[in-house]
């Protein structure tokens, strides 16, 4: 019995090359996002943002990570050693794994081989994403719990509640798109958006997915998991040095992956508006450009909104987003059936 088809056209060496390129390019966006975060937020608060290291402070992320990597590793006496060590790894592995199914472009001719500009075209795209999203939550929860500190523990508990409640709405918001595209493959979803991007017919779904993405990636205003005001740093209170850098990296990578998914599912992936059909090599640039727009939105919201209270977070998730997402899925289902 075949549970899921993974479609690929390439010989093995092209697969390895693709994996390396996607990994390298995906991780290169992290420092850009980090820098954009601090620069844009600085500008919105009428200040420069970091501008000391390198031209316009462009080398600040490298200096940041370099500083963290050279710091001493330590852990509290009450912590559980091996869990404490692997929790950040779980976080970053799941974030990187999600990059594999992001479609950067259609099938192209590279060195005489037909190559899809994506890691794999999994026929269960969104399920793959939510599977890894669920594992990513273990990274945060185990990290917070195994630290043996009450602040970390509170952060972990909040992470558990928050990620589970918002994953429901996030999944339901995607159901409308999946029903419209009649496919679970992200590549097919993008191809189905050739005429019209799904942000137009699925606008409600888009808004729900956007809000839920903020919560899923622990970005402000839903960063209750970290809540530096009340929980010091939440799940990463006890982390320092390279392990903290890993968490930090994973947080930004999660933000980028969420942006990629929103671009793929709602903003038409590699399609340009007004029927412009660029040559194939432009497609990844289009995808990354649209992703930058979403990264800007993430930063924009961070600069604008105060952190939600815990009960507000819960009531928004369960009393607003979930009914809306359900209604959106129902209405979409009815329309799809009627117009079919």
């Amino acid at each position, binding site marked *: 019995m075949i549970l899921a088809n993974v479609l690929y056209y390439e010989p093995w060496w092209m697969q390895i090359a693709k994996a390396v390129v996607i990994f390298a390019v995906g991780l290169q966006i992290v420092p850009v996002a980090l820098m954009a975060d601090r620069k844009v937020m600085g500008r*919105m608060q009428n*200040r420069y943002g970091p501008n000391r290291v390198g031209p316009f402070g462009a080398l600040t992320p490298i200096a940041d990570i370099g500083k963290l990597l050279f710091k001493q590793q330590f852990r509290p006496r009450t912590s559980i050693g091996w869990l404490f060590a692997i929790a950040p790894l779980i976080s970053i592995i799941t974030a990187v794994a999600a990059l594999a199914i992001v479609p950067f472009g259609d099938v192209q001719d590279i060195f005489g081989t037909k190559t899809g500009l994506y890691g794999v075209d999994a026929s269960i795209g969104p399920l793959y994403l939510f599977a890894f999203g669920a594992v990513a939550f273990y990274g945060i929860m185990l990290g917070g719990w195994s630290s043996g500190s009450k602040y970390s523990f509170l952060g972990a508990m909040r992470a558990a509640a928050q990620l589970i409640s918002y994953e429901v709405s996030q999944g339901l918001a995607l159901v409308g798109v999946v029903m419209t595209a009649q496919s679970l493959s992200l590549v097919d979803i993008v191809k189905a958006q050739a005429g019209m991007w799904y942000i137009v017919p699925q606008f409600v779904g888009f808004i729900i997915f956007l809000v839920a993405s903020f919560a899923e990636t622990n970005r402000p205003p839903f960063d209750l998991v970290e809540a530096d005001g009340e929980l010091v740093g939440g799940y990463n209170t006890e982390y320092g040095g390279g392990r903290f850098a890993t968490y930090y990296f994973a947080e930004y990578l999660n933000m980028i992956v969420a942006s990629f998914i929103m671009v793929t599912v709602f903003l038409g992936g590699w399609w340009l508006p007004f029927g412009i059909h660029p040559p194939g090599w432009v497609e990844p640039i289009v995808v990354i450009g649209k992703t930058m727009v979403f990264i800007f939105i993430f930063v*924009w919201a961070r600069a604008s909104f105060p952190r939600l209270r815990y009960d507000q977070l819960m009531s928004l998730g369960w009393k607003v987003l979930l009914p809306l997402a359900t209604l959106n899925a129902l209405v979409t289902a009815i329309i799809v059936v009627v117009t079919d």
Partner: protein
Amino acid sequence: MSPWPPSAEELHVVDGPDPGGAGGFYRAFGETLRGLKTTLRQSVAPIETVAYPEEKIPVYPRFRGRHRLHKFEDTGLEKCVGCSLCAAACPSDCIRVVAAENTPENRVSAGERYAAVYEINLSRCIFCGYCEVACPFDAITMGNDYEMSDYNRHDLIFTKEMLLAEPFERTPLRGEGE
């Protein structure tokens, strides 16, 4: 004193969005967009940052910075006569003066005596300016220099030679009407 609780006219009530309901949801959504608009507008507003070590905010002429001792411009003699009135006026007791007699061979100040030792412990000085007020000869004044951090406490004890010397880097001075 106004009475407590304040009357209805004094109270400025700000209505938050009603919890729940379609109206509250619509209103919360509108406020969200308003917040986003505010930050976007601020992102094109002028930057308030003064990049400090490179650009300095000019100080006012009466700014009380690090002290300076003065000499007569024509004769080159020190104005300070070692009377210790500044040390007496100093509330934090950071000025130490040891006076010595002027002799015809060694004439340092214009008066009968001069300050052989004149030290100000700037780590204790509170920059009140009482020494300046107490001085009968305007020998000590508060300068404009405020960059005095150092690595050792004993480096902050300024001797007479240091106080008489011109400051290395002049602090920008605010002009008339600036």
